[in-house]
């Protein structure tokens, strides 16, 4: 247990830095590190990542809101269909092999890296 906390701190720091720098929730850092460092299963890593993102995104949204950058109506408008999507996505995830989750994640990382570079 003692060796877990420093790693969790490191994941939080890198995930938070990613979030602060590029405005994303940090999931692209949290999920791989939970799998590769903690030996999480793919489904557990994605579920736990979402819980962490609740806290990260809520804090970041409040911070950006104080600068007046948040369009609440627009966020709700795109967030409501996303709720339907996430319910479908989590249900689908239970029905596919964990290695497929890893493969989809690898593709997402390559796309995300390409977006950063180009």
């Amino acid at each position, binding site marked *: 247990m003692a060796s877990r906390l420093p790693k969790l701190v490191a994941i939080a720091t890198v995930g938070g830095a990613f979030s602060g*720098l590029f405005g994303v929730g940090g999931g692209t850092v949290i999920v791989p590190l939970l799998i590769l460092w903690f030996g999480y299963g793919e489904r557990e890593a994605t*579920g736990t990542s979402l819980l962490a993102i609740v806290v990260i995104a809520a804090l970041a949204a409040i911070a950006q809101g104080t600068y007046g950058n948040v369009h609440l109506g627009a966020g709700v408008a795109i967030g409501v269909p996303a709720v339907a999507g996430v319910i479908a996505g989590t249900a689908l995830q239970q029905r596919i092999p964990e290695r497929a989750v890893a493969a989809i994640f690898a593709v997402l990382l390559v796309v995300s890296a390409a977006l950063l570079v180009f």
Partner: protein
Amino acid sequence: MDALDVAGLLAIGFCAGMLGGLVGVGGGVLFVPGLVFFLGLSQLDALSTSLVAIVFVAVVGAWRQRGYGNVRIRDGLIVGALSPVGVLAGTVLANAVSERALELSFAAVQILFAWSLARRALRPRGGEAPDTAKAPSAPANG
């Protein structure tokens, strides 16, 4: 804003949520371009606004995954609660290093992760192997 924009917003919102549910991210990678393209938000406003939609995805996704038994609450809360440290570190870093260098180094990290995950995905496994292999390997992974 015409009907096509509304349809586009609904479609990209749904896809972002689907992605979030499948791979445990917030969906910002789709929300941000969606808000810029269909609602004409600036990049900064889209980044900020996407956080609201990400909260929706993460709350509902975490709730569903908890129902499926896939959430380790303690670890998730620790990572979430300590992330402001990282946000501060990121802000300091952003002022010290060129943005291009940061983008390129994060891209490199992502490719490294992609490589490791792809190797996991391609490793031959039997039907029951993932669960039986996971338990003994977890402590040894330190």
